[in-house]
């Protein structure tokens, strides 16, 4: 598909464009210390802290069994909602997205490179957190790894879509504040380190309906070796659909 490339050229096909773009997207994401903090250090710290210290009073069973699904959910939020959302917001603000639109790089290639960079980071996060849980706290997961991966992929998609919707629709400063605010809200209300039933009675229905609760509840059910969490997973799929549609409708490149 390189058209009429001249003899001296290496054809700049979508594949080599994709590789170059992916390399730069990954490099730039990991170059920002605040990204490394929220992607890597925060989830690991929270996992180690809450698993090591018994501050969670009424979790039945061991804290690590409750924490692993929650912290995995948090890791997806860190990468998709906060890091991808805020970095894309500033790329839009500084007209990077507009400038790239003036090159032969197709939008689909750019989106694929961004999605792959997020996915690679998230695979790394999940593996690291599971290894720490296993080696440090003797955690053992049950259930089908394929189902776990399926939930993680839907969660990753949903949080990335929420981040991109904000990045593409709001001003950069609003995305910065909004993504961080949402992250905190989800951390407290999304069944991450604190069970939803510990929350005040009247906020519980709202908390249960949030995307992070759908992810963490689905993961928890599968990893506990229970029946497939049909209700939670249906909620998650609905969130994926809604947030994906929102990103497509509201994302503006300039």
């Amino acid at each position, binding site marked *: 598909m*390189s*058209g009429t*490339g*001249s003899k*001296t*050229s290496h*054809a*700049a096909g979508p594949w*080599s*464009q994709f*590789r*170059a*773009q992916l390399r*730069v997207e990954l*490099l*730039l994401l990991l*170059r*920002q210390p605040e990204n490394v903090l929220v992607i890597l250090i925060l989830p690991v710290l929270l996992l180690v802290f809450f698993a090591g210290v018994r501050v969670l009073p009424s979790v039945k069973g061991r804290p690590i069994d409750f924490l692993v699904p929650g912290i995995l959910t948090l890791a997806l939020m860190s990468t998709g909602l906060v890091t991808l959302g805020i970095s894309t917001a*500033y*790329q839009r603000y*500084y*007209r*990077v997205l*507009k*400038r790239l*639109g*003036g*090159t*032969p*790089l*197709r939008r689909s290639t750019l989106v694929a490179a961004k999605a792959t960079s997020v996915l690679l980071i998230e695979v790394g996060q999940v593996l690291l957190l599971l290894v720490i849980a296993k080696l440090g706290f003797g955690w053992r997961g049950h259930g089908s790894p394929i189902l776990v991966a399926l939930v993680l992929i839907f969660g990753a998609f949903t949080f990335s879509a929420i981040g991109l919707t904000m990045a593409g629709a709001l001003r950069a400063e609003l995305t910065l504040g909004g993504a961080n605010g949402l992250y905190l809200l989800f951390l407290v209300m999304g069944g991450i380190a604190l069970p939803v039933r510990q929350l005040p009675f009247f906020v519980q229905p709202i908390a249960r309906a949030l995307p992070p609760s759908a992810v963490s509840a689905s993961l928890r059910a599968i990893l506990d070796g229970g029946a497939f969490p049909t209700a939670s997973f249906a909620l998650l799929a609905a969130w994926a659909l809604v947030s994906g549609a929102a990103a497509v409708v509201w994302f503006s490149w*300039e």
Partner: protein
Amino acid sequence: MTGPGAAAISVQEVSKAYGGTPAVSSLSLEVEAGELVAVVGPNGAGKTTTIEMMEGYRRPDRGSIAILGLDPVKQATKVRQLVGLMLQEGGIYPTIKVGEAVGLFASYYSNPEPWPQLLELVGLTELTQRRYRQLSGGEKQRLSLALALVGRPKVLFLDEPTAGMDPRARLMTWEIVKGRQLAGVTVMLTTHSMEEAEQLADRVAIMKEGRLVAYDTPERLRGGAGPDLLHIKLRERLPEELLLRLGSLAAVDGIEDRGHGTYDLSSRDPARVAFALTGMLLDHGIQFNELRIGRSSLEEVFLRLTEEESH
């Protein structure tokens, strides 16, 4: 296919409005292959809207645009291989390093220029490892120029390429742009500097309120064979008596008093006027700060053509 002399850029009766406010109104203009055109005009005249329609960023409400015979919106994929551009500002990842940016952009094109040479050309070799965010305004512009050139474009769109540059960087940019034009590249740039337009452009397009009010060579815009202008700045006002004597000289067509001892004399024989005038000043011991003979400058033409209507 574009042969020599064919239009590289063709704009026909193009209009564009934002929310009912017209930004560009039935604008037509052609740029020949290998030509360098400067678009000038006051802020809000529609320069950026015009150039962004040519780049394919905005779709005209009416009219048509062809870049090398291709529609910049409908045939964007083809056009973008052939076009290099500089946005008015920004456009580059804040934390990317200079070398990484050029390398990345090189990967987009099928036949990119070797990027170390390109950095050499724009004088950024020493800053290869510097992050974009840490560059000065002029350095950012030069990197942006390098990114516009890396795909060996046939057409260059430069939106205020020398804004924020020091005089040396500006000169360097002029040389690079001129060099590309000599190599056959068609260039369209916007600028607020009449000096830049005069130095670089084969033709200057003057825009006002979304319309093209003039489009010609700088030479012809300045009035071609019209009367020459003699501009003099004195330390004091000319005594009334001398002013009358000056006005009565046959070679003087008109005198305009610009105040504070500054006068513009129009004449078909400026050498004779200058001779008489300096003689008079010597006789009366009047000092002058500046004496200039020439056609009216592009700046004056620009100001006249883009003047606000008096109310």
